[in-house]
């Protein structure tokens, strides 16, 4: 590892090969399209997909009523109807959700939309373990078996969720490994990487999205973007040092 520039080039190459920077965003976009398709198929007010992250459901994508508010919401699975579905791998269909005071309160507080009906179905992997929950709010008139349709969309989501899960886990490992690799030659950079590995900020994916968008520009525009970002980074670093 001869220099910091060389290391960063290699990091960029690895990230590019793995698709680790872009894939979660693509997966989220695909999940959002899936939610829209499910919402249209079931004539429902809203469809969302939540990923099971340990003991928490993380809403990765949604389409319809309250979609912007619910995305990125984290709900513990120890409570609530979606939590029950995640814990038991059993779909649940409730017609008058407001009858469950806890549900009505939780959702109203987070999303500002209390549905009349809720269908929640588990998203499972090939082993039968739950990896998430697909929720359908206020399904309307449509042809076909509601549960079978929702289940088919949940099966499709099961192919997308691992991409997000993998990337969320991969990033800290990658940063930590790089830190170990350069410990001898560049102590400062190793320390920075290690800090990153232990506490990835919530906006990592958004930052990756911006970088991916910049990379798709033409060479001249890309050069301008890099210059601009570099100047901003220098400025931000200077301000931080003064503090």
């Amino acid at each position, binding site marked *: 590892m001869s220099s910091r520039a060389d290391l960063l080039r290699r990091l960029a190459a690895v990230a590019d090969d793995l698709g680790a920077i872009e894939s979660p965003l693509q997966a989220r976009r695909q999940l959002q399209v899936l939610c829209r398709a499910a919402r249209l198929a079931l004539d429902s007010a809203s469809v969302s997909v939540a990923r099971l992250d340990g003991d928490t459901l993380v809403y990765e994508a949604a389409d319809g009523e309250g979609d912007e508010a619910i995305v990125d919401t984290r709900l513990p699975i120890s409570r609530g*109807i979606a939590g029950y579905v995640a*814990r038991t*791998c*059993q*779909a649940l269909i409730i017609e008058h959700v407001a009858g469950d005071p*806890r549900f009505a309160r939780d959702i109203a507080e987070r999303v500002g939309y209390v549905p009349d009906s809720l269908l929640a179905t588990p998203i499972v992997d090939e082993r039968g373990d739950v990896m998430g929950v697909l929720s359908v709010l206020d399904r309307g008139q449509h042809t076909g078996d509601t549960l079978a349709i929702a289940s088919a969309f949940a099966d499709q989501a099961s192919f997308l969720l691992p991409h997000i899960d993998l990337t969320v886990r991969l990033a800290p490992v990658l940063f930590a490994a790089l830190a170990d690799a350069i410990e001898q030659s560049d102590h400062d950079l190793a320390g920075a990487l290690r800090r990153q590995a232990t506490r990835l900020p919530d906006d990592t994916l958004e930052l990756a999205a911006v970088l991916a968008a910049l990379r798709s520009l033409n060479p001249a525009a890309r050069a301008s973007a890099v210059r601009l970002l570099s100047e901003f980074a220098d400025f931000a670093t200077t301000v931080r040092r003064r503090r």
Partner: protein
Amino acid sequence: MSDIVPAWAEPFFGRGPGPAPSLNLPTPLVSEWAFGDRTGRGVRVGVIDSGIESGHPLVGDVQQAIAVEDSEEDEDAVEFVEGPHEDLYGHGTACAGIIRGLAPLVELVSVRVLGPDLKGSAFSFAHGLDWCIEHGVNVVNLSLSTANEDYAEAFYELIDQASYRNVMIVSAMNNERKRSIPSEFSGVFSVACCEGAEPDRFFSNPQAPAEWGAIGVNLEVAWCGGATIVATGNSFAAAVIAGHLARIVGAHPGITPWQAKTVLAALAVNATGAAPATTPGGRPARRRR
């Protein structure tokens, strides 16, 4: 007497194994005989679920509550914590309310396998079933199942143990076409839902694995906080069959699971030559849409 007795053959040598299980089934087999006083008096019914809310208007008192929780000392073990607990989700209370509605004098045993600790549900669920078999529970309502085949063998053994000890295991089929362990096993009373509002109108299905059909669509069921909600699912149909079994066991203590299946099948609405119920069933489930 021969000097050679192959293993397991001992009961059939000498004076034999004693009287065969017998019910002296009446002809025709009518619900008055099968269900007796329809109370399930003295029958211990275990609800393996999210807990039961004791004192809920549709449930009444819970006689025993056991929570299956992670062991702090051994990650491959669980602890059984006895004492009142809440229903974390509402689902167990819903099932218990249906059972109490059909058999008001059963002893309700809440076996909470979905606690605040987040160990794999199937793991706790298997331990909860084991606890029921070992603690004199007569009818177990399992409105849970797992699709994880790693647990198939454990549940296979547990269902056999239950069968040998005359413990009736009622198990809801998964609401989706997925592996549904142990409800697919022939040793349980596997249940899926049908439409309707009368719990006494249930089906016996000659085509496995969903052996029984009972009401479970848009039922008003008990839920957390003394509330009721309207829900659909095979879970609730399983509770209906568990309630009927509690009535049968109450009227015929010591009845075996296969005898109970024979009785239940004779009362099914699609039974050949079924005798119509001449007295009303339990509290009719309210059906809304």
